[in-house]
């Protein structure tokens, strides 16, 4: 059984519903029509482009090309993490903390899963490697962005309490431990919720896709469970690393709270 192919007309019809939503938003002055249309357009353009890229990549499945696309995805995800910080680390750190943590967690988990668990031939087979990395990056990105944002925002809001603890002779890591714990938790909440709701409230996207493509449900389910575990561990270790690295960077070698290392982003809000 193959996939039922969609015609451009089908997509055009689906898009009219988005246009209708935008029209209502405009009439009722929700102010969301512009971002809605822009992101709908971005979805179309970006997905079409990646479609072409994947087509080419599948035809030229060499390690170097797969690695280059993976690197590109990582760098874009790193930028996205940075853009979601209200108060981010100044300079290279703003980009580095999130990207490095994502690199360590997502890439490591993907390579591990490909070599030890799924074992396609060759292990970097793009049909497996790229979607797997994409799912991991997308989720790790969320966790890291949420965790880092909570870390820097809380440190800013509670700077006086943190300094009060330093004045009492607490070490830097003890002075920030509550915030660090809280940031970790916040980063992990989405994936914990997703695992709890999987199959009962929502049918996860990858499983749905495989079933639509004709895979037996039990095979799709096994893949989905594997992916959930990979995402949970990738997000967990990534957030752990990013929050730990970030909380170190908030203090200098003399255990002073250095909020001058954060820069306020000029938000569009």
């Amino acid at each position, binding site marked *: 059984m193959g996939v039922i192919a969609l015609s451009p007309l089908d997509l055009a019809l689906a898009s009219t519903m988005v246009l209708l939503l935008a029209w209502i938003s405009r009439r009722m002055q929700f102010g969301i029509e512009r971002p809605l249309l822009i992101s709908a357009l971005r979805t179309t353009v970006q997905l079409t482009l990646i479609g072409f890229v994947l087509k080419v990549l599948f035809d030229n499945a060499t390690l170097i090309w797969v690695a280059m696309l993976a690197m590109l995805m990582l760098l874009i995800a790193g930028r996205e993490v940075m853009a979601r910080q209200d108060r981010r680390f100044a300079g290279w750190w703003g980009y580095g903390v999130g990207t490095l943590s994502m690199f360590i967690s997502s890439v490591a988990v993907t390579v591990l899963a490909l070599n030890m668990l799924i074992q396609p031939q060759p292990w970097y087979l793009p049909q497996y490697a790229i979607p797997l990395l994409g799912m991991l990056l997308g989720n790790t990105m969320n966790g890291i962005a949420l965790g880092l944002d909570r870390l820097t925002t809380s440190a800013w809001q509670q700077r006086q309490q943190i300094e009060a603890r330093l004045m009492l002779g607490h070490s830097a890591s003890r002075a920030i431990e509550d915030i660090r714990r809280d940031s970790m938790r916040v980063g992990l909440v989405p994936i914990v919720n997703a695992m709890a709701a999987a199959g009962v409230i929502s049918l996860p996207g990858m499983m749905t896709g495989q079933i639509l493509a004709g895979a037996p449900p039990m095979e799709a389910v096994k893949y989905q469970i594997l992916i959930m575990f990979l995402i949970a561990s990738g997000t967990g270790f990534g957030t752990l690393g990013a929050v730990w690295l970030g909380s170190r960077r908030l203090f200098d070698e*003399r255990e002073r709270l250095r909020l001058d290392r954060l820069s306020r982003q000029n938000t569009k809000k």
Partner: protein
Amino acid sequence: MAAGLTIKHLRTLHVGPVDLAISPGECVVLTGASGSGKTLLLRAIADLDCHEGEVLLDGVACHTMHAHDWRSGVGLLPAESQWWGESIGAHFQQPDEALLKQLGFGCEVMDWEVARCSTGERQRLALARLLQNRIKVLLLDEPTASLDAENVSRVEAVVKQLRQERAIAVLWVSHDPAQAERVATRRMRIESGRLQEVV
């Protein structure tokens, strides 16, 4: 080796250069207009802000020990106390009953909610909290600004006792000339970041 607190050419962006020595048991009262750098000087001594120059405690330089060990010995009581837990008790490991009594509290204070304490109560409790550490130097930033007369004398008595019994060196920022008269063994004035002895 000089006992007590020794400050050599201490300089930050807005303060200094400052040279000052406070012997054990001595109380130096520091006055100066708002914005003259009193609080910044105290913060630099506690190594909370970047600074140049050296600060030594009993002859041992600040930078040779861990920052948190330094601050355990050089206690800064800020003008406004900060609390991170919900109850007062969450901030105390072994409450010193005698000290709390001296400051006008009973033991039940440990069950109090921070949010329900007045500024003055919090200020006195913050002093008790700080004194859990084995400090050798006490840096006070207008500690009695929000207290009534009775509590002002309680705090002054506690500090006096610390100087006499534990030979703690005190640097006391105060706006009140009468208080300076009562507690100081030496008086300094700070003007645009520089110290002058008041004679």
